């Protein structure tokens, strides 16, 4: 699947799904620990704040991690599948993959809910891709090659 635009900083496709599952899960667990640790600490009465934070982390952080992990892993799975089908890598891959993820995660909520969720996810990823593209363009503009200064042909012999 080595299209010219392929991103070589990431692993190749079938195996990268596991990596994304793990990465997203780890991100969710660590972020969820911080989030629910603070939340549990603040919501506990004085004298039980530390144990409150700990039990909130125990109860909630793995769930947050699981939600993140399933989202990231499913997204990677759909992204790889779409890459394999379309044989190209562009922003539409992410948007279609986001659409599929949103739909899949809402599959038990009925058709209307699925469609809503899918469109929301697709728009979210579209915005993400758009921002990425703008950033890329800005970086390219900031680092654009500078033309060589043209030597002043009339003045040089006189000055020398």
């Amino acid at each position, binding site marked *: 699947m080595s299209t010219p635009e392929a991103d070589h900083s990431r692993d190749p496709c079938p195996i990268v799904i*596991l990596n994304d*599952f*793990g990465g997203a*899960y*780890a991100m969710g*667990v660590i972020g969820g620990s911080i989030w629910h640790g603070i939340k549990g600490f603040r919501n506990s009465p004085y004298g039980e704040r530390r144990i409150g934070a*700990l039990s909130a982390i*125990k109860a909630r952080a793995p769930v947050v991690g*699981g939600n993140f992990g399933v989202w990231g892993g499913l997204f990677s799975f759909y992204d790889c599948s779409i890459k394999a089908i379309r044989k190209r890598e562009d922003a539409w891959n992410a948007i279609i993959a986001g659409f599929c993820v949103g739909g899949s995660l809402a599959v038990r909520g009925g058709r209307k809910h699925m469609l809503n969720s899918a469109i929301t996810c697709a728009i979210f990823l579209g915005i993400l891709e758009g921002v990425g593209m703008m950033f890329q363009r800005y970086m390219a503009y900031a680092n654009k090659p500078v033309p060589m200064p043209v030597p002043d042909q009339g003045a040089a012999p006189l000055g020398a």
Partner: protein
Amino acid sequence: MWLFGGSSKKQEDNTVVASTPSSEFVSEKSNTPEITNSLQSSFPTIPTFDASKLHPLAGLDKELEYLELDDEKLSTIKGTGNGILPSRGWSDDLCYGTGTLYVSGLGLGGLIGFNEGLKNLPSGSIDHVTGVVKPAPFKLKLNTVLNQVTKHGPHIGNSAGVLGLLYNIIDSSLDAYRGQHDDLNSLLSGALAGAIFKSTSGIKAMGYSTGMMTLAAATWCGFKRLIN
């Protein structure tokens, strides 16, 4: 020229002969017909396509070419790598380890939940007037199975994922601290991960969990030995 495989070596020899500095002008002249002859004779007999005879640069004789990474990006800690996938350091270990454990936990839990759901399928309702047993509708049965799958799958998956996360974080820290990656690190991080995982459930549960995780780490080490 190496695209044509077998003929490349012969040709190289000829060019070496032709360009040796000791060869005089006359001898060089006498060599040229030979080159053209050998070229002409080799062109019609282009061998059938054989990946192993290609130039090594192409690397087409290897099977899983895509699993190779740049050497300079690979982890520098001694004894690293598990023999299955190349590792670029702690982040690769963490992501792949956690991801594999999480996904397999999710799958195992899903299977258990599927089994549970099939065991607890709703029985049909009995019409009290006629006494006829009305079977439960398919949607209700599907819902029961799916409820059980989504109850057991994430539970086991999350537990396995947390264990994998703890194990890999501790293992990588120990690797970096000791400067090498060996079975001792693995066993120790397994024990610590098990202890932390059950640290709020009392000494006995902690002991069980520590023992189980040490055993699991030992199994993993043995498995790595086996396949390497």
